[in-house]
């Protein structure tokens, strides 16, 4: 049965929302989904600022929902900032508000969310989310929401898909910046130690490090022996080549320090729920500490001057690469196919050469880490890039 929405008649009305934080390619996902939905005769609407457009429509003079008409999509710049905006917190189970007694509290608005979506005639939702967002959408799906997720990750750490969109753009930018650091290190005759994102998965550090032929790449999956790194650099940094380049993932761990053996995430894990999550106000920020630690220890060990640099969140901005644009469009269109097939509670995944739909239960609580037998590990070793310890 078709639904009367506004002046047009559509077969279905579906919505798309975007989780917290920018990732290059968000607009391309929206375009892919809207175009695929339009082809099926469905109306696609975008929810502003996470779920805020539905939960707090009074905040939006033009409405909390954006009708993604063909005209709007045709003129949407895939390189521009996200059309739908973003909210710092996207968790309808813990919505922060100030109550009538002027006291701040977090309330569960998941029931209201589902009711409001139903009242809007929306019968399925595409959620473009990262790792934590998948868990939240899994909970919402268990409460009855017809949800399909699209994975987004700068660190490419979401399991069950070969690649999340956003990663390739971050990788390209990281490589460009590492090239610049290498030039700076060469001219200054120092060892540059560059920290890149990667709390539990070292893909960004490893692949970027390979691309620029770094001297060493330190990733969370391989606890690093800094004495061995120092020895390797001692060999490479000579009078003729008096510079070096080390790439370190922010979640790198070290074998020579018992304290450092514990996973960085253990600290977050030890705190209460409100203390955790990237959108939380109580996130323990470690940005820069891996680079600082490695740079200072290497400088002590080999009497060469080091300088730490942190790329960190810089890589989250910017335009998507060609790869990410294609991937994002494919994910958006794929999510609509999943809805058409009625495969709810799933995540769209790229499992070369196919786009597949994997159950959310198989995607959460996993981290796509670098396996010890990864081809990238072999390539790095073949290029003489030291990975923190002899494997």
């Amino acid at each position: 049965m078709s639904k009367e929405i506004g002046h047009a008649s559509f077969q279905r009305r579906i919505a798309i929302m975007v989780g917290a934080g920018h990732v290059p390619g968000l607009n391309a996902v929206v375009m892919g989904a809207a175009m695929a939905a339009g082809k099926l005769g469905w109306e696609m609407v975008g929810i502003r600022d996470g779920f805020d457009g539905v939960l707090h429509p009074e905040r939006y003079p033009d409405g909390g929902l954006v009708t993604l008409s063909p005209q709007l999509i045709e003129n949407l710049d895939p390189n521009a900032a996200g059309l739908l905006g973003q909210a710092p917190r996207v968790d309808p189970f813990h919505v922060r508000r100030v109550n009538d007694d002027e006291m701040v509290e977090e309330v569960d608005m998941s029931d209201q969310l589902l009711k409001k979506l139903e009242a809007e005639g929306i019968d399925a939702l595409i959620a473009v989310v990262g790792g934590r967002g998948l868990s939240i959408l899994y909970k919402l799906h268990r409460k009855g929401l017809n949800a399909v997720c699209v994975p987004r990750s700068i660190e490419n750490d979401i399991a069950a898909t070969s690649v999340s969109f956003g990663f390739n753009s971050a990788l390209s930018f990281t490589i460009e910046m590492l090239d610049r650091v290498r030039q700076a290190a060469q001219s200054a005759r120092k060892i540059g130690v560059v920290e890149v994102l990667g709390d539990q998965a070292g893909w960004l550090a490893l692949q970027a490090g390979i691309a620029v032929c770094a001297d060493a790449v330190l990733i969370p999956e391989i606890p690093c022996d800094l004495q061995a790194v120092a020895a390797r650099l001692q060999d490479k940094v000579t009078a003729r080549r008096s510079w070096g380049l080390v790439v370190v993932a922010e979640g790198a761990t070290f074998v020579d320090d018992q304290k450092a053996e514990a996973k960085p995430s253990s600290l977050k894990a030890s705190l209460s729920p409100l203390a955790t999550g990237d959108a939380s106000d109580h996130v323990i920020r470690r940005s820069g500490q891996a680079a600082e630690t490695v740079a200072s220890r290497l400088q002590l060990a080999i009497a060469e001057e080091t300088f730490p640099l942190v790329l960190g969140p810089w890589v989250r901005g910017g335009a998507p690469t060609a790869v990410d644009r294609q991937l994002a469009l494919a994910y958006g269109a794929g999510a609509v196919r999943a809805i058409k097939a009625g495969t709810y509670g799933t995540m769209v995944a790229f499992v070369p050469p196919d786009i597949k739909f994997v159950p959310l239960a198989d995607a959460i609580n996993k981290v796509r880490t670098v396996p010890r037998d990864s081809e990238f590990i072999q390539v790095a070793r073949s290029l003489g890039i030291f990975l923190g310890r002899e494997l």
Partner: protein
Amino acid sequence: MNHESSVSGLSGIVLNIQRYCSHDGPGIRTNVFLKGCSLRCKWCGNPESIAFKPELSYDPKKCTGKKACGVCLKAPFPEGAFYVIEGADDTIHVNWDLAGDCDEALASLCPTGALEMFGKRMTVDEVLDEVEKDSSFYRNTGGGMTLSGGECLLQPDFAAALLKGAHDRGLNTAIETACNVPWRFVEQVLPHVDTVLHDHKLTIPERHKKWTGVGNERILANFKKAYETFPDIDFVARTPLIPGINADEEHIRAVLAFIRPHKNVIDYELLPYHRFGLGKYLSLGVVYELDDYKTPSDDLVKHLQAIIDEAFGRTGQDAAGVK
């Protein structure tokens, strides 16, 4: 010992009872931390005190991992709430979005104690019996019991009963509060308090809202009304000093201008922000940062303290030390 009280069976959510404290009121004290807060200060170092309800905590240092235990990976624990990462080590991780509903009964199934609850329900008598264990210290030092939080005034019935009960047992009482509560809560509790340690976090309402979640108009109105309504209570103003947010002369002078007309505000203390131990035991061998805030420099603290000492007419050896 039998203490007759119609409210002795009243209960509330207690986060922690800390003995031998010396900075939160006169003498040696026992601090009772009540759970729940009505602000969301971005620098808060005690996130476990924010929610009202008892909530699950996980200490990875106590956990023996999947192979040795793995109890939490199976029913009756919620599906997906706990997990290990394939290909990594044996460490158990928590999916807080799925584990948030775990209650005390489930936490008690953890054999190593890695899973515990932050906060538990206690009766007035249970708390006071614990507090009274150090009566001899209180007698010798003029100490007693301090209610802290979270925000202790958010449990007004329980707080009032605790404080009254403490008075009945001859103990000195103090509370630590930010006062972001309806006046009726303040009015209910303060008759049983000897000393009020109260936070002046930020002066300008917009900034207060930015950093704590709400403006400070009601807070300041509560303070003023409290000074005037309870002239026999000693009030001590306090500011957690956070560089870049409130560690400046303008704020300190504004607080002084607010409190000095009131003779029962007997002191103004600075609490230099420290990254209280949250991450000292982990990380890459260095201290974690709680957000990006720095601790204030000694010179800055001394400078601000000198302004306070001058306002209170203290010089030389009379000048207050920084707490």
